[in-house]
């Protein structure tokens, strides 16, 4: 709940709660009962989180987000997710949807840069309540410094519970509450207020969910540790690496310089079922689909990611895109590396 004000009544309560009709502004485009007020913020509780203005009035939606994890495995997974995101992008956009949390990068989309997309589905949470900007646009977009999140949760490995909540404490915050049971029977509760910027609706189109393009080949990846060590060695040799795979479960990584070339051959990897792919055409399964990428970007991914996935695969769009996918229980991590 944004700014749990003790005086109730003037604020919508609950997902379909009482609305105060006096504050509905017809034609404002919002739900009845949403707070609309003039520039004088003092007259209203809670404070406006939105950055939009609407004809002299602040359009103000009361957004709500509260989620709690009590399962130890999911807490550890969440810690891993937050560390991964911090390693792959400095500032991230957290998109709170009805059924999941999405983490993506911020900033203008530079086409040459690798991009991250991470989803944590509602299933990981013991409790998950959210109320977006409006009923039609039932989402919340928050921008925050990625590093703050793992710092707040990294010691929560033994926590009894981990709670995330959107709050308003002088400024909008993502409040992380870690509850640790101490040996004496007392619980230690640690509260971290992470400053966030609530992104207005007009900006949402800047942060779209990446659509998985049609790919030419899809193959399961070998063990990540092996891949990482090979990529690390190759990074010492050359800047660019060739990644290729075919429909017979084979994948090669190679790097080449004037002096030396190194190629690693992986076989028997298996391909995801064809029906799950959007394979463009029927081609000879032995044909390798290729893409050249910057080794640095590939390395950054392997060094950054912390999750121990149950499934990993990569999709290659010939000479265009290398798309890595990791899945573990309710978490999926995707990394899009454009071709050189």
């Amino acid at each position, binding site marked *: 709940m944004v700014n749990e004000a003790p005086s109730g009544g003037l604020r919508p309560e609950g997902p379909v709660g009482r609305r105060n009709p006096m504050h509905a502004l017809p034609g404002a485009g919002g739900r009845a009962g949403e707070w609309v007020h003039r520039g004088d913020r003092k007259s209203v509780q809670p404070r406006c989180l939105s950055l939009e203005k609407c004809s002299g009035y602040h359009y103000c939606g009361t957004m709500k987000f509260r989620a709690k994890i009590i399962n130890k495995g999911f807490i550890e997974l969440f810690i891993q997710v937050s560390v991964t995101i911090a390693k792959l992008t400095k500032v991230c956009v957290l998109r709170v949807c009805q059924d999941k949390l999405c983490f993506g990068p911020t900033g203008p989309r530079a086409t040459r840069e690798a991009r991250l997309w991470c989803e944590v589905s509602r299933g990981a949470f013991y409790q998950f309540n959210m109320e977006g900007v409006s009923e039609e646009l039932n989402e919340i977009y928050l921008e925050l410094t990625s590093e703050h999140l793992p710092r707040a949760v990294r010691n929560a490995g033994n926590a009894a519970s981990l709670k995330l909540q959107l709050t308003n404490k002088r400024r909008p915050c993502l409040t992380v509450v870690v509850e640790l049971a101490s040996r004496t029977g007392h619980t230690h509760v*640690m509260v971290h*207020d992470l*400053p966030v910027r609530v992104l207005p609706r007009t900006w949402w189109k800047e942060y779209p969910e990446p659509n998985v393009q049609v790919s030419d080949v899809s193959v399961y990846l070998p063990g990540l540790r092996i891949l990482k060590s090979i990529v690390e060695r190759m990074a010492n040799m050359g800047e660019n690496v060739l990644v290729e795979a075919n429909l017979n479960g084979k994948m090669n990584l190679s790097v080449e310089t004037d002096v030396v070339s190194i190629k690693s051959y992986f076989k028997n990897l298996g391909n995801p079922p064809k029906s799950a792919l959007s394979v463009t055409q029927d081609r000879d399964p032995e044909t390798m689909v290729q893409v050249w990428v910057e080794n640095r970007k590939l390395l950054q991914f392997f060094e950054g990611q912390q999750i121990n996935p149950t499934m990993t695969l990569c999709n290659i769009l010939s000479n265009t895109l290398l798309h890595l996918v990791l899945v573990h229980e309710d978490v999926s991590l995707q990394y899009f590396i454009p071709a050189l």
Partner: protein
Amino acid sequence: TAAMLKCEMNGSQVKVFGKAIQALSRVSDELWLDPSEKGLALRSMNSSRSAYGCVLFSPVFFQHYQWSTSMKMNDDDRPLNLNCKLGMKSILPIFRCLTSLERNVEKCKIFTRSDKCKVVIQFFCRHGIKRTHNVCFQESQPLQVIFEKNMCNNTLMIQPRLLAEAIVLFTSSQEEVTLAVTPLNVCLKSSSEESMDLTNSVYSEMSVDPDEFDFFQIGLDTEITFCFKELKGMLTFSEAVHVPISIHFDFPGKPMALSIDDMLLEANFILATLADDRSRASSPQSLCLSQTQKRSDLIQSNPKADKSGTSQAPECISRKTAPKRLYSRETPTNNSAGTCGNPPTRRANGASIFEVPESSLSDTDEGPGSPYLRKFSCMFFGAVSSDQQEHSNHPLDSLAIASDSEEDVINGSVSF
């Protein structure tokens, strides 16, 4: 003959000794070895004079302990102590890998003499291996802080393991933390100074139940802000010696003490705390902390202290009027309530004594805005006055720990 120190430890004692050095290394880069009849004191003070640490090992801690002052007298007709200052960079590496030292060292001997300019540390290890380190020292009189922790309104004692468990959740980026206490609640949180300056900083907060403390006495609801790093240093040490850690404090601006005390050793870290705005505004005489909010400026060794005459001098430790002092002192009669001038100087009387400086207004119970604060917001390191400067080569000479104590009364008014 020269002043001398000679002591001997076994493997597990070396580990504790090394842990003390490591804890003191968090305070500053310099370490004083200061032997006396009370034992061997290791002292350290940071350059901004906002943190001071002292670990006193009693003679019974060692397998063997021997010390002496020199036969020579200094200008004040007192025997010269071993004034031995070592660089942390030299001594810390010797006491690294403490677990392996504990395992391998059968005996450790430390020996130094004031005329030798070096400290000899010898490890007699297993398999007949003997390792000798010679560390040069600088001759320098140890600095000391007098602080009577028993006079503090608030005292907390907690098992180090519990405190460590609780503060592990604190993110390490915070340099300063605020401890907020009421009789019902203890809360450790990010310093609001930091949080407000930077719009992108995280605010963290954690509560500890009063029941978790071995001793819990809060006489004054207060919030004090201090450097987290030093707390962690002391906490690590107290975990190593398995002794509960005590925290003594009062109002913001007054130094706080972290201490551990068992039969063999006593450790005290005195930290400056951030004074709050109110006190600064209301007491224009608190020069030493009025200029800036930064902790490092809380203690300003007065730049004019070296000059004689009308220079201002850091306040010295003044007379005590409270009956609960460790050592009774006569109160000079020329001090009267209502004046803050003419405080007598006081010499430190050994490492184990911590006396709180009190103003001549100490009889009145005043809050943080009082003149109380302006005197005690800094740590005061000795008596320097226009009279005394003629006698001392260095403004801090008067801090020398002498086995006998002296009282000097400043005749002129001392303002700071």
